[in-house]
């Protein structure tokens, strides 16, 4: 066991511009932007389809992922596999790989894992209703000036700022 010497994070503006160039590359190459929650939806559709094919086909939310190349070769699922690889390699090079439970100073590891699971499930519901998340709506639709995407972005930050004082114990 040793503490890795980790490099500081990149300048946020520089990282943001690089991220913008990646997003622009997606528009130029594919005619579509980035996403994340869609990968969760297509893999969920894949599992439901494997467990109960008729049920998946009858469900309009899952059925849309079952055409074409199928749910496991969905563009966003492959992209998210890339996100995990890219994040891992970046952290490896910078010495930031660390098995840990990141949490506020007053929260036990167990409580943090529970609250993170609940938070994920809540975001899952929100992302399904909104047809996307911070990647597919806020970043992608934001750059495309989509009205619904800007509405989502403003609502998401409003929801987060209204919630933050209530969950202050989790972080401060």
């Amino acid at each position, binding site marked *: 066991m040793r503490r*890795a010497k980790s490099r500081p994070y990149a300048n946020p503006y520089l990282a943001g511009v*690089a991220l913008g160039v990646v997003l622009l590359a997606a528009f130029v190459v594919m*005619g579509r932007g980035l996403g994340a929650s869609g990968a969760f939806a297509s893999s969920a559709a894949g599992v439901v389809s494997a467990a109960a094919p008729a049920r998946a086909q009858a469900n309009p939310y899952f059925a849309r992922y079952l055409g074409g190349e199928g749910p496991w070769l969905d563009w966003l699922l492959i992209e998210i596999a890339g*996100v995990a690889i890219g994040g891992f390699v970046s952290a490896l090079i910078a010495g930031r790989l660390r098995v840990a439970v990141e949490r506020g100073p007053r929260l036990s*590891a167990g409580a943090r894992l529970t609250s993170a699971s609940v938070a994920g499930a809540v*975001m899952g519901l929100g992302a399904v209703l909104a047809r996307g998340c911070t990647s597919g709506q806020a970043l992608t639709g934001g750059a495309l000036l989509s009205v619904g995407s800007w509405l989502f972005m403003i609502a998401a930050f409003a929801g987060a700022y209204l919630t*933050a004082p209530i969950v202050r114990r989790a972080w401060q």
Partner: protein
Amino acid sequence: MTAPFFELGYVGPRGGLAAALIIGIAFGWCLESAGMGSARKLAGQFYLTDLTVFKVMFSAIVTAMLGLFWLGRIGILDLSRVYVPETYLVPQLAGGLIFGVGFALGGLCPGTSCVAAATGRLDGVALVLGMWSGVLATGLLFPLLANFYETTPRGSLTLPQVTGLPYGVVTLAIVLVAVAGFRGAEWLESRPRPPAAPVPNDVRKPGRALEGVAL
């Protein structure tokens, strides 16, 4: 017009998936480099102590927005072939508010949770599993939500269409708002603030929690 390559047939289905992997790797690299795989750092956005989320997101939006505008203007990119997410006003407003509740509680969003999980953060793994379960459950209950999901459709509606302002004017306005926001963010971060919260136990005492198992 020479782009989008995939839409114009210069890139086939296999090429598209290869592009997905490469673009994803670059996406994840950018997020991790900026510190967006750290829930504590992201949570700082909501207590106005660390505005990295805002700075990264808006630098990215402005960069891609300006790139779209100019590539369209000089005739390289056919903007009519770029998919604009469709607007459904009420579901996106409600979905956004619900999403925000989870965002503040979890300190990660779907994309950044994948980075957190891939770099060893077990809270990121928990959030990914919770998110996946939430999407699965909502999907299974979708027949109950289907009517609400389809309410207030507006198609591929954009801010220039709604405001009646030219594309370039809206683009410029967002650049100006972003620059003002960056100045505000720097000001907020430079404020004198009460002593920082103590370093969490898992950083200070490696034996107590899982921190310290450096790879």
